[in-house]
C-alpha cells in the first residue's frame, strides 16, 4: 500500500484544508450569509481563483465540510478499537463514547453551522439524500453494536438498525433544541443524562 503522493498534491490538499478551516471559522464568527468567497480567500492567504479550483460555491464547500466530519468520526472510531486505553471498555461503553463524540463534533462548529446545515436539509424541494446520508457514522455505530452484542453488553432483542435510528431521532431533537437556543449551552454536558438513559436502555440486563 504505497500510494505515492506527490509534493504538489500534498500542497494542494493542505491548501484546500486551509480554505475549508478558514471558511468554517468565518461562518461561525460572522454568519454564513455575511461571509464572501473573497473573505475566505483572504484569510486563507489564497486567491479567489484558487478557491474556485476546489469548490464551485460556498454551498459546495459546506457540503464538503459535512463529509469531512466523517473523517473525524473514523479517527475516533479507530482509536476506540486500537488505543490500549480503550481496551478495557465493553461494546456498550464504546458505543456511548462514539455517540457522545458524534454529538460533540456536530456541535463543535457552532450553532450557526448546525442551523445552516439543518435548514439546507429542510428547504423547499426534495429530500437532499446524498448529503444527509449518515452512512459515515451509521457504519461505525453498527460495528460497535455488533461488538456489544458479541460481548454481551448490548441487548440482542433490538435490531441494530432500530438502535441506531432511534439514537438519530434523539440527536435530531437535541440538535434542534440547541440550535434554537442559539448554542446557549454545552450539549454533551446538558444531555449527557439523555445519552446515558439511552445507552442503559439498550444494555443487557444484569443477571
Amino acid at each position, binding site marked *: 500500500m504505497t500510494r505515492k503522493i506527490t509534493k504538489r498534491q500534498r500542497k494542494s490538499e493542505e491548501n484546500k484544508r486551509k480554505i475549508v478551516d478558514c471558511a468554517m471559522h468565518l461562518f461561525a464568527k460572522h454568519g454564513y450569509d455575511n461571509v464572501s468567497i473573497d473573505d475566505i480567500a483572504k*484569510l486563507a492567504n489564497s486567491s479567489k481563483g484558487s478557491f474556485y479550483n476546489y469548490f464551485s460555491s460556498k454551498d459546495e464547500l459546506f457540503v464538503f465540510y459535512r463529509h469531512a466530519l466523517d473523517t473525524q468520526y473514523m479517527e475516533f472510531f479507530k482509536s476506540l478499537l486500537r488505543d490500549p486505553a480503550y481496551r478495557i471498555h465493553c461494546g456498550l461503553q464504546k458505543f456511548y463514547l462514539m455517540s457522545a463524540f458524534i454529538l460533540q463534533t456536530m456541535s463543535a462548529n457552532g450553532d450557526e453551522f448546525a442551523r445552516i446545515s439543518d435548514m439546507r436539509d429542510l428547504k423547499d424541494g426534495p429530500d437532499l439524500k446524498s448529503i444527509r446520508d449518515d452512512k459515515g457514522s451509521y457504519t461505525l455505530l453498527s460495528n460497535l453494536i455488533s461488538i456489544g452484542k458479541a460481548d454481551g453488553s448490548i441487548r440482542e432483542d433490538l435490531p441494530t438498525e432500530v438502535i441506531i435510528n432511534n439514537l438519530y431521532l434523539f440527536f435530531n431533537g437535541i440538535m434542534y433544541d440547541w440550535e434554537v437556543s442559539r448554542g446557549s449551552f454545552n450539549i454533551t454536558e446538558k444531555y449527557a443524562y*439523555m445519552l*446515558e438513559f439511552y445507552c442503559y436502555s439498550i444494555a443487557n440486563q444484569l443477571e
Partner: protein
Amino acid sequence: MESQTGQKPKHNVKKKKKILRSAIRLFKTDGYYNVSIEDIVKASDSSTGSFYNYFGSKDELVISYRRELLNSCHIFYKKLQKDSAYSDKNALNKLQLLTVHILELLSSVGEEFGRVFTIHRLKETDAVPEDKPYLPLIMELVKSGQEDKSIRSDYSTREIAEIVDLFIIGCHIDWQIKRGAYILTESKSNTLDILFSNISSSAEARKPKEMYFDEIWADAMSRTTKDFSSDIKLLEDQWLERLYGNKPY
C-alpha cells in the same frame, strides 16, 4: 394606525380563524411556497389589510396556526383525565397516548408546514415564544406516573419530560427531512413502544450493570484531539498584519 388602538371588530377571532383555515387548506393543496398572500385573501373572502392586521407574514401565520393546533392537545388531555374510557389506564399509558396525539396533530398539517416552521425557528433570531404548550401536560403525567409507580423515578420529572419532548421533536424533524415519506404515527409506533417501555418503572427494576459513562467520557476527552482554532488564530493574525502592517490594531 387608529384601528390598532382598541376598537377591533368583535368577531375578529372568527375572521382570523377563517383566514388561518383557508391558508392551511391552500398550503396543503398547492404548497406553501406557491401560495401568495393574495391567494389567501381571496380564498378567505377577506382583505389584504385584514390579513396584515392579524399576521405580519405567511411565516407568522404558520407559527400562529401551529400554536393553535398544539393548544388543542389540552382538550385531549382533559379527556384522558376525565373520560371513563381511560379510567383503567395508568399515567404511563396516558403519556404514550398523549405523545401519539401530539404526533398526530403535527402530521395532520403536512410535512411542508413542519419544515416552514422549523426553518423559521432556525433562521429568525426573535425571541422564542411558547412553542411547546404540551410540555406542562407531559410534566403533569410524568409526575403522576412517578406517584402511581408506573414511571421510573431514578430520573427527575423534568428529565423524563425532556426525553419525551426531544423524542417528539426528533421524530417530527426526521419526518420533515424525509419529506413525509412515511406515516408519522404508524412507522414510529414500534419506536414509541421501546421508548415507553424504557421510561416505565419496570425498566428501573431491571437496572443494568454500572457503566461509568461520564467518567470514561471525561477520560476520553482528556486525550483527544487536535484543535484547529490555534492554527486559524495564527492565520488571522498574519492577515491582519498584511492589512495593517505592523501597527498595533
